[in-house]
């Protein structure tokens, strides 16, 4: 799955990577190329192997088999301190016996950068992360968001080719998290470093990434741009992991040349057998995002429709969420953008719900993970 988007050699290249801890297979057949200047997210549920993959790139773990190249060079024999890579740790791992300035200066100091030069670069970096005024504070005197900034500065001041970030926002509360996401994007643009970002949070992944690497049970499930992964998931796992989706389950039967019909509780849906690896007699699901469905009556351009009854309505400001049960007994959700004065159905209403063909994805049911 080499999804390199540029013609140049990728900055990080993993081929046939395997990792075993004793009998446990942590990573299986990892093939991944990361390009210079990209923000790539390793996304997956906890225990899926994403942190292990990052620790392999950093040099804290070694591949059981396969190769890892950074900048075209095999780095298997390089210890962490010799790799052109820096890491932001999950709980920051800032040095508590040093103040902000000395934490950031640490990498330059051990590399023997001359004092005046060191001071200049540390101060410039502290300015970038807006921590200049707190440079004499000790780590214990900082808030979570400030620690985050120091951790970023401490890694970036070394000018790494790749910055690895291990769930850096997990310890922050929601409001600061959103602010720091914006900050990280800004800092990435300013420094031009390649970011490899580990998270289990699909929102962070979609907001931040150029590309998302979805990992499940130690395997790469899909590598795509966030919008492609959201609208064109290649597996049921991907459809369920990124955002919310409605799943109409059924059996595929051949209904014509290149035409398949998904027989569900709510009648047949005609589908084109295209990129989804589905064929006749397969159990399959149609995945539709709640916001892709509408209550419109004139359904000229809408390809699929079901009749349903509204069980519950949740109003949440800009949007409303409808819980519905179809005539066939299928539970699903619809999300509608609220407009002032718009007449929306209420609980108990019988409605006609429809959606377009290109907003639905038919996926095989065979391999359900999670």
């Amino acid at each position, binding site marked *: 799955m080499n999804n390199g988007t540029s013609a140049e050699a990728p900055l990080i290249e993993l081929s046939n990577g395997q990792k075993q801890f004793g009998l446990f297979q942590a990573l299986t057949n990892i093939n991944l190329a990361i390009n210079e200047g990209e923000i790539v997210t390793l996304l997956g549920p906890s225990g899926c192997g994403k942190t292990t993959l990052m620790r392999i790139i*950093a*040099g*804290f773990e070694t591949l059981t088999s396969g190769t890892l190249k950074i900048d075209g060079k095999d780095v298997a024999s390089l*210890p*962490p*301190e010799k790799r052109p*890579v*820096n*890491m932001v*740790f*999950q*709980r920051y*791992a*800032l*040095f*508590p*016996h040093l103040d902000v*300035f*000395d934490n950031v200066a*640490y*990498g330059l100091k*051990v*590399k023997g950068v001359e*004092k*005046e030069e060191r*001071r200049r670069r540390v101060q410039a970096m502290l300015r970038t992360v807006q921590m200049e005024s707190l440079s*004499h504070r000790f780590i214990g005197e900082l808030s979570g968001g400030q620690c985050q900034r120091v951790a970023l500065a*401490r*890694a970036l001041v*070394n000018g790494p080719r790749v910055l690895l970030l291990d769930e850096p926002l997990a310890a922050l509360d929601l409001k600061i998290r959103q602010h720091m996401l914006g900050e990280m994007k800004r800092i990435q643009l300013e420094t031009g470093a390649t970011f490899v970002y580990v998270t289990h949070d699909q929102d962070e992944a979609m907001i931040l990434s150029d590309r998302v690497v979805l990992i499940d049970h130690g395997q790469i499930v899909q590598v795509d741009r966030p919008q492609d992964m959201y609208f064109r998931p290649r597996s049921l796992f991907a459809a369920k992991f990124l955002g919310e989706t409605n799943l109409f389950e059924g059996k595929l039967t051949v209904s014509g040349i290149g035409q398949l019909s998904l027989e569900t509780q709510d009648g047949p849906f005609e589908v084109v057998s295209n990129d989804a690896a589905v064929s006749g007699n397969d159990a399959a699901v149609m995945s539709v995002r709640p916001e892709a469905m509408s209550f419109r009556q004139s359904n000229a351009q809408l390809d699929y429709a079901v009749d349903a009854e509204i069980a519950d309505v949740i109003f949440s400001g800009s949007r409303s969420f409808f819980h519905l049960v179809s005539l066939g007994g299928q539970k699903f959700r619809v999300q509608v953008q609220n407009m002032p004065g718009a007449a929306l159905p209420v609980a108990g209403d019988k409605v006609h719900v429809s959606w377009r063909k290109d907003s639905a994805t038919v996926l095989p049911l065979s391999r359900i993970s999670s």
Partner: protein
Amino acid sequence: MMLLKAVVYATLAYLLIPLVVIILFSFNAEQSFSFPINGYSLRWYALIFEDPQLGQALVKSLMIATATAIVTLVLGTAASLAWLRLGRFGRSVLEILCITPIALPGLFLGVSLLVLAAQLGVRLSTVTIVVSHVVLSVPMLMIAMRARLALFDRTLEEASRDLGASQIGTFKRITLPLIAPTLISCAILSFALSFDEFVVTSFVAGTETTLPMYIWSMMRRTVTPLINSVSTLALLFSIAVMAIGFFVGRFKRASALSERASS
């Protein structure tokens, strides 16, 4: 609340009054141990310097305590590094092995060390005293260290490696400074432990005489106020050692800051 306060003060008094009594009587002008004190003098301090045997015993004890503290510090550092890298099972085994001697009464430890020395044909000397004191102080160091090291975050070492420091560099710049306060307080504690150790010492000392042994033999003959002045000096010495430890830490921080401000 009142009761709680009273208990706290009573406990403090219980701990400190003997010390105050010793200090007071060390300045007593008379021989007798009775209140009220009639007049103060430094004669008991002067006497310390007139008793060459006492002086020798004191110097010997200081040497032994210093050696014990250094050896314990080295062993303790090594043990803490090992402890940090062990799993749960390994930690338990290490702790059990290291802490067992503390459960053994000093009397039996003294006997067993004496028998061991005889079996090995080792001549009893200052060296055997230091070895015995290290056996005593290591378990105590392990107990003191365990609580502190359990809080040590090993990702700090990884962060240091990630930032370009070698394994040795990481030890020097990160691990050691972080465990140093614990190690230093442990070293001071083992110094104190060694300085007044009597039971085990009496078995393995051979012909050597340490300060506690000398005081004990002195007391057997007659109770003399000289003991008060010696104890007061020892107390002052202990406080000084701890104060130095405290101020060194302060001074390092201040000088680092001023250096940066001037550059």
